């Protein structure tokens, strides 16, 4: 089945069965390996992408459900040769990245949060990360980074 949608604002056409996981299409024919196949069962959140602005576990999202939608991945957060966006920069500034395998999913979950609420509090930040496992950092520095961005946006940090 042909499927047509956008990935990081670029129009794509993919020929694959309806139930093909979106993650496989991103990482295979589309060559975007930022989203990680951490568990393949929707538990770890490392494959999180945005579908029409909402976080989705791409390993459990059938390709057919991407039809006509806007898909965004970690690779689309900043121009490849441009500066990091504020969330990416804050994660590094605050030491919120260790092995980094969860980082793409964390960034997409936080991106969805900040597009809804530019000044989230700690509870909202943690809520937004409910579906993302980080095994390295203990989350503190990730939350700290997000709150720093919220502070820069005028929120109470």
């Amino acid at each position, binding site marked *: 089945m042909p499927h047509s949608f956008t990935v990081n604002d670029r129009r794509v056409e993919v020929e694959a069965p309806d139930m093909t996981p979106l993650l496989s299409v991103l*990482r295979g024919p589309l060559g*975007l*390996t*930022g*989203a*990680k*196949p*951490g*568990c*393949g*069962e929707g*538990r*770890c959140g*490392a494959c999180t992408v945005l579908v029409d602005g909402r976080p989705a576990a791409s390993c459990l999202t059938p390709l057919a459900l991407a039809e006509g939608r806007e898909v965004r*991945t*970690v*690779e689309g*957060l*900043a121009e*490849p040769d441009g500066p*990091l966006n504020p969330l*990416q920069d804050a*994660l*590094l*500034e*605050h*030491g919120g*990245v*260790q*092995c*980094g*395998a*969860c*980082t*793409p999913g964390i*960034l997409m979950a936080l991106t969805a949060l900040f597009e809804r609420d530019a000044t989230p509090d700690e509870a909202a*930040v*943690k809520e937004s*990360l*409910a579906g*993302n*496992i*980080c*095994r*390295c*950092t*203990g*989350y*503190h*520095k*990730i*939350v700290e980074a997000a709150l720093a961005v919220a502070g820069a946006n005028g929120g109470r940090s």
Partner: protein
Amino acid sequence: MTRVVGTNARRADGEDKVRGTAVYGMDHGVTGTLQARLLRSPVPAGRIRRLDTARAAALPGVHAIITAADVPDTTSGWILKDQPMFAREEVRYIGEPIAAVAAETTEQAEDAVAAIELEIDPLEPLADMDAALADGARLIHPNWESYPMLAPGPRSGNVAWESTLDRGDVDAAFAAAHLVVEDEFTTQRQHQSPIEPHAAVGRFEGGRYVVHSPAQFPFLVRDRLAEWLGVPASKVRVVVTTIGGGFGGKIDAMLEPFVCVLARKTGRPVRLVNTRAEELQTAGPRENARIRIRTAVSAEGEILGQEADTIADNGAYSGEIVACAAVPGLVFGGTYRVPVARYRTRVVYTNTAPTAAFRGVNGPYAMFALEQHLDHIAAKLGIDRRELRLRNVVKAGESIANGQVLDDAVFDKGFARVEEIAPWAEQAPSGNPRALRGKGIGAVTWLTNPGPGGATVKINEDGTAGVICAGAEIGTGAVAVGLRQIVAEELGLTPDQVVILPADTDAGTYDGGAQGSRTLFSLGNAAVQASTQVREQLLAVAANLLEASAADLELADGHVRVKGSPGAQVPLAAVALTALHTAGPISATGRHITPPVQFDSGCLTGALFTGFATPTYHVHSAEVEVDPDTGKVTILRYVVAQDVGRAINPQQVEGQIHGGVLQGVGYALYEDLRVADGVTLDASLESYRLPTAFEAPPIDIALLDNPWPDGPYGAKGAGEPSLIPVAAVIASAVSDAIGKPIRNLPITPFDVLAALREDGTTEGSTR
């Protein structure tokens, strides 16, 4: 004063990681790569009666199928070499590899695996340690005596390894005691569960095996491959990808041998990645254990003598648990004064998936047992639990159970800092008036793994520095930022001006692996040594350019300059270029090994680790509340006082502590890789529960400044130890809250409720 060391410089691999462009083992791609899958044993014990791959090999897309018949009849292992690459005649655990398929697609490889004809005559599995230790039990390895060993150790039948520590007249101490207290504890398997599963891509080129994998200890993987494949180590090259987490689970070889042999057979690159179910069910977790401990004390709570018997589950084959078999004894007798001791640890074969290293190998359950045992002693004697610890904890210059003297112990400082942050007599605020409240505190000595390392430092012709080493960047930042800071500090550069080649066994000198908190300690020392020689070379060349004596020169801001003469300087680029025509390219190699620990060598048997090399000291405290209606444990406050020698990058050290504590919280409260009848029941992250952001407790950190004279800029290891005390102090706190002992991990709400209902009392304990 240092300029770069001690700052929170950013990690070199950070941008790629936040942009999603870092290439992990699971991302590594080569044109024309075939996909592999494994046929694994469906039973925990049995003899292979028939294995026929002919029909599977004829399926579409299949390029090769290999079994034990295609590889040398050898066994391999780090210390005890008992593991075949494929099960040959006998299978010993569910998930043991029996055949490997390479096909055009993963689906075709899976179809072929399903089509392999396999018949096994099952044997009654020895599913737990009691069964394996029973008199007359079947031998899991009938040929156990024939296995080669890296170092000899006491073994016997289903006891894969035994380690003992025996020092002084223990029986006399018990005979003279005011009180003898005895306890038994059991702990569960805990899975490392990095986000990235094990993955490997193999090629065969130039008559050599080349494998790309997220290996923590690439030289061990190289040596294991050489043993299994029957080739010299020089015929194997291990190139380390970005590592998506390891925590000990990626120290040993796992999938690498299969892609190597399949690549040779097919002439194509071959890729193999574990599913999450394979990770949980076959990639070795922290071992389950049972500890019996008995202590003789005086009326004042002084420990007079102690004995402990530990059994640790090896699973079907040996990994790091054997190497660390002496560790429980060192933990029992390494923190509080134990004048005479008798400890024994047996590592026991079972028909279960092999267990393996997990951060703080063999340590967390030993400390959990010891600290609950101390609480029991405190209750019996009516002594405050913290006070009991203060009376017994070792002071600087005192010796521990193996006879090692801890010259720089800082437990007094550690307890004092914890007291300043969270006074023992005060309570943190709580929103639940019905909650039961409790506190726990404990201390532990830990080590910096003494394995060797080396680093080459060179000055590039643009004035930057290059570092070649085989240190694997596991995510801690030890290589990606710490090592850069040290080299930058040494050579008057910024961290951005130091480029480090990713680990590759063809390039770097031997390295003892990203394990045991050693990477920055060992490679930092090697890099300082190399940098010292590089500096001498630079100064010698620059002395001619500046017409000055080398003794009057210094490195700063990317220049060699004359001390006290601001204008008289020459850029490193010019010095490096000049050197090409005069002294030769600027380059030097440093190497490092930690000297052996001084201990009473007669007291230990079967010990690969004989003491605490480059010891570090840790005091943790936890305050919890327990909901008496649901059994839920909430950590209100957690405090870590940690000796890291000196922090090269305080932010990264804090990150290690945050992460280690949360892994410890998982071990204490949530994570339980259940095994029954040889079956690992947890096959997904739905039932194997990892801590989320909601479970991360507030953590206060006090870094104890205790520079180590033989560490780079005073640093000691900092990676592992924050995990080790967590279950111990949380269990103490829960026990304090509910007024009942905690003897098993993890502490689930069901366990808490059951304990509360035992006899209806819910009073606090001895505090």
